[in-house]
């Protein structure tokens, strides 16, 4: 137990470190593997959660607590007491934070604050800046402790390779940590920002830390001393026992460490963001304080023994390492080294992940998005986010390294840690106020934090860079511009206070006061109010059943409400069943909380959870319907409306299809009937002439007919044969016209010419009677491009009809032709009685012969053919009612274009 002899060659130490890191890699990798993640349920146990919380114990607590004890006695306990109190009282704050974290999908403490105050990015940036500023020296501290502990093993006596210099060691550690963090913190993007692999690796490190410290403690108590009794007497004798309790400092430090455990970004990350189940908190509420107690159990014995055994001037911050070395326990020293290494690495990794998330989400991404020209953001964002995370991690670890180089790594470890604590504690008022006080505003949170952070930086952070660092001695001693009450460590004339407590007091007091004052004077925006309600009432809000104890609802009222929603029968059946279950007669159960819960569930099935809750709340009278209830109801209503709109759409679609089918069916039926009628008509039209032909030919064949009569019979046969042929011609013509397969021969002719031809042809038809035609030849002398034969066919039909059917004593047909724009109009008007109104709609149908006389021999196809011809010529034929006699109007284009 004389001098410190390095028992472990430095090379071996480096190898052990690398092997250890490799093990952590494997743990993290295996845990992230989907198959393992599904199978190994213990990975989600509250134990892993609790152990991951141990990143609170950094290298500062692992090594520094002993140093703290050596200098200030039991005061180091304050660092553990704050978190212990917070976790024992988890029901009030932590539970709420975790619930809010889950409800709002909070990804970091900056996100929490930003989200609470109306999703303000200003606050997100502010919290991020404070957190990064405060964390930087803390990360530097971890680098320093690892470097120092490496240094312990470095000795000129060592022949197996000398260790590199301090700066180089710190740099390599920083690079290694950044690499590990990038690899496992940003392997993929998780919507909840959870990192199962990292958390499990952290839990492993927590175990190593605890085992190492306990090991060293046991060695000190039972190896270097003869058990607890001797240790206690040593403590009595040591200077450590002479420490004095400063109540102000104790209260301040307990409060500070309690605030830190809530506000440190890395603690928020493991406590809230990485929390898998809220129930894990209940376990952590006793297990984590127990862990802290075990960590502090041997602190004083190690400190006392170190002071006694080790030579004067040995760094008490390294007693954990130097005592086993001095005792010749190389393996234990190695374990202690790994414990410190674990403490430092786990803190840096989680802090870097948490801070990188904040920097990336609140500074880099908004900036990048704003830099984008108005183009829509593409799927590339994922890559950008990962890149920005990785760069942020490297930047944060880099900042820590830079601080380490700047500060020269000289200050006592504990001092740096407490400075960081005061920094992050500036977030506390906005956080606590945010989850308990609905009236808090964004402006209040921002001004409070800015003022608090400014006071912190001025009175504690900047002076920590040391004399002649950033703030000059003159300012420290006499204040800026000689204003004494602005001296950094004696603000407002309060002197003689411990600088740390002084800074804590002023920064937090001013912060909280400003926060409250600005909030009260201002007014929250609607967004802040909605978010405030969601945060403060996270337990009562919307979808969770708040329990119905103490309600004054009448079962009758509830039945009425339920009937409206569920329908009379179902509601009554439910109430009866419930009443029976309660052992009551009738259909009205007592409104017990169990019954109400069941009813709410039942109603929720019909109208949605939020609406059900709001309705019951109103009937119960106990609770008022809150804003978020209404918002939730509105959301549900919107969904229901969307759903019913979809249903309506579908049913409309269905009825439209049904209508189409019905119409198609009707059309088919009609067509089928038309076809039957058409065939029947054709049969009649064909069989009638054939009957005459057959009858007379049989008479002639018998041969006993006088020749005069025979000639008459043969004449009938002849005319009926012609009639038959004409009928077949018409049918074929109609078929061609209806199929649209008619070939048009276009030519340039005058209407006059066509009418002349038509009159000539119509004159040959029966009957031959006096028939006057009135025309206006000049108006007919217009050239038209059309199919002359087809148009003439229509004209012949109309003229013949007039000749046949005009029943005036002196029949007369007026033909009026005129041009209207690009179209020709030809009217054929006779002076007969015309066509009766009820028949006008039928005349263009096939076989629609109106008169009982078929002297003219037509089969009733003429006008049907005309209609088809005019359609083929791009024109129309219509009946003009009210013209005295029968009147037809034919229109056709002046220039008919040939179909392409």
């Amino acid at each position: 137990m004389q001098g410190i002899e390095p028992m472990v060659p430095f090379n071996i130490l480096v190898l052990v470190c690398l092997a250890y890191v490799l093990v952590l890699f494997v743990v993290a990798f295996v845990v992230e593997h989907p198959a393992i993640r599904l199978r190994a349920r213990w990975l989600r146990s509250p134990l892993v959660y609790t152990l991951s919380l141990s990143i609170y114990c950094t290298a500062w607590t692992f090594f520094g607590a002993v140093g703290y004890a050596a200098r200030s006695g039991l005061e180091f306990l304050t660092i553990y007491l704050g978190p212990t109190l917070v976790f024992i009282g988890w029901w009030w704050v932590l539970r709420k934070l975790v619930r809010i974290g889950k409800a709002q999908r909070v990804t970091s403490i900056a996100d929490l604050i930003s989200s609470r105050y109306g999703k303000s990015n200003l606050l997100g940036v502010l919290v991020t800046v404070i957190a990064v500023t405060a964390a930087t020296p803390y990360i530097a501290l971890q680098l320093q402790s690892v470097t120092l502990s490496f240094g312990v093993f470095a000795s000129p006596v060592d022949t197996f390779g000398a260790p590199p210099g301090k700066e180089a060691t710190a740099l390599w550690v920083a690079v290694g940590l950044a690499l590990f963090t990038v690899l496992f913190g940003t392997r993929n993007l998780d919507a909840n920002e959870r990192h199962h692999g990292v958390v499990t690796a952290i839990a492993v490190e927590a175990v190593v830390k605890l085992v190492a410290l306990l090991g060293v403690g046991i060695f000190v108590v039972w190896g270097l001393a003869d058990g607890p009794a001797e240790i206690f007497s040593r403590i009595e004798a040591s200077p450590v026992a002479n420490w004095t309790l400063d109540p102000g400092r104790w209260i301040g430090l307990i409060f500070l460490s309690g605030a830190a455990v809530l506000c440190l970004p890395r603690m928020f990350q493991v406590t809230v963001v990485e929390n898998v189940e809220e129930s894990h908190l209940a376990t952590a509420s006793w297990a984590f304080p127990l862990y802290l107690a075990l960590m502090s159990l041997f602190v004083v014995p190690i400190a006392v023994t170190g002071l006694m055994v080790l030579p004067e001037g040995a760094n008490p911050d390294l007693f954990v390492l130097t005592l086993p070395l001095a005792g010749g326990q190389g393996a234990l020293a190695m374990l202690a080294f790994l414990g410190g290494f674990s403490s430092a690495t786990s803190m840096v990794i989680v802090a870097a992940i948490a801070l990188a998330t904040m920097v990336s989400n609140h500074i880099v991404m908004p900036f990048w998005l704003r830099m984008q020209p108005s183009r829509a953001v593409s799927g590339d964002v994922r890559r950008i986010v990962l890149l920005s995370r990785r760069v942020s991690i490297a930047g944060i670890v880099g900042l820590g390294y830079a601080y380490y180089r700047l500060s020269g790594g000289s200050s006592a470890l504990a001092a740096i840690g407490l400075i960081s604590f005061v920094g992050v504690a500036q977030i506390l008022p906005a956080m606590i106020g945010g989850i308990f006080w609905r009236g808090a505003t964004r402006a209040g949170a921002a001004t409070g934090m800015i003022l608090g952070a400014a006071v912190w930086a001025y009175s504690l952070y900047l002076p920590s860079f040391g004399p002649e660092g950033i703030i000059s001695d003159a300012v420290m001693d006499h204040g800026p511009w000689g204003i004494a009450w602005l001296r950094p460590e004696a603000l407002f004339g309060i002197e003689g206070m411990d600088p740390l407590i002084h800074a804590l007091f002023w920064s937090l007091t001013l912060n909280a006061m400003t926060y409250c004052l600005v909030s009260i004077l201002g007014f929250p925006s609607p967004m802040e109010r909605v978010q405030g309600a969601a945060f403060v009432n996270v337990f009562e809000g919307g979808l969770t059943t708040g329990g119905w104890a103490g309600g004054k609802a009448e079962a009758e009222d509830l039945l009425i409400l339920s009937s409206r929603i569920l329908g009379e029968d179902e509601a009554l059946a439910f109430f009866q069943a419930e009443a029976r279950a309660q052992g009551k007669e009738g259909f009205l159960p007592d409104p017990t909380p169990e019954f109400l819960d069941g009813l709410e569930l039942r109603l929720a099935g019909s109208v949605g959870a939020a609406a059900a809750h709001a309705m019951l709340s109103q009937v119960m009278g106990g609770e008022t319907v809150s804003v978020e209830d209404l918002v939730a109801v509105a959301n549900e209503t919107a969904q229901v409306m969307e759903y019913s709109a979809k249903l309506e759409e579908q049913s409309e679609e269905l009825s439209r299809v049904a209508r189409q089918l019905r119409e198609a069916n009707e059309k088919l039926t009609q067509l089928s009937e038309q076809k039957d009628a058409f065939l029947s008509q054709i049969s009649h039209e064909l069989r009638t002439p054939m009957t005459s032909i057959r009858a007379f030919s049989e008479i002639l064949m018998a041969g006993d007919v006088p020749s005069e009569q025979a000639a008459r019979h043969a004449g009938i046969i002849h005319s009926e044969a012609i009639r038959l042929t004409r009928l077949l011609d018409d049918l074929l013509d109609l078929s061609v016209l209806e199929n649209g397969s008619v070939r048009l021969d276009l030519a340039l002719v005058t209407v006059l010419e066509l009418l002349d031809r038509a009159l000539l042809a119509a004159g040959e038809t029966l009957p031959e009677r006096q028939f006057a035609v009135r025309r206006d030849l000049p108006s007919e002398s217009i050239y038209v491009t059309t199919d002359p034969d087809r148009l003439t066919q229509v004209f012949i039909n109309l003229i013949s009809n007039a000749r046949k059917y005009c029943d005036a004593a002196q029949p007369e047909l007026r033909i009026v032709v005129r041009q209207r724009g690009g179209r020709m109009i030809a009217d054929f008007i006779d002076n007969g009685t015309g066509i009766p109104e009820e028949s006008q709609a039928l005349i263009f149908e096939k076989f629609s012969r109106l008169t009982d006389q078929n002297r003219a021999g037509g089969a009733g196809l003429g006008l049907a053919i005309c209609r088809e011809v005019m359609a083929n010529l791009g024109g129309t034929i219509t009946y003009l009612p009210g013209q005295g006699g029968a009147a037809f109007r034919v229109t056709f284009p002046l220039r008919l274009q040939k179909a392409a």
Partner: protein
Amino acid sequence: MGRHVLLVEDEPNITEAIRFILARDGWEVTALTDGAAAEAAIRSARPDVVILDVMLPGRSGLDVLAALRADESTCNLPVLMLTARGQGRDRAEAERIGASRFMTKPFSNSEMLATVRELASA
């Protein structure tokens, strides 16, 4: 046994053919073209046989037949129905109403004569 046939047919050439065939065999033929007037004419003329076309202007032959069958004095009158529509539907309908015989146009002259003789002697 009388030899009076009343023919209701709107096609003049067919009327002429039937009249010629029956007249040679010694029948007296009265011809009508209009369905509407047929019933009254039959009632007053009291022919021995009626030849009735289905498709008539004014009133359908089937309609006239139904009216004849509904009246006691004419319910047993022999009626030969003629149709040119050639579809089973007319025949079924005519038989249901009570046509004595049914023939489709065009018909054979000898068959027409034989049918009229048969109806008159029944």
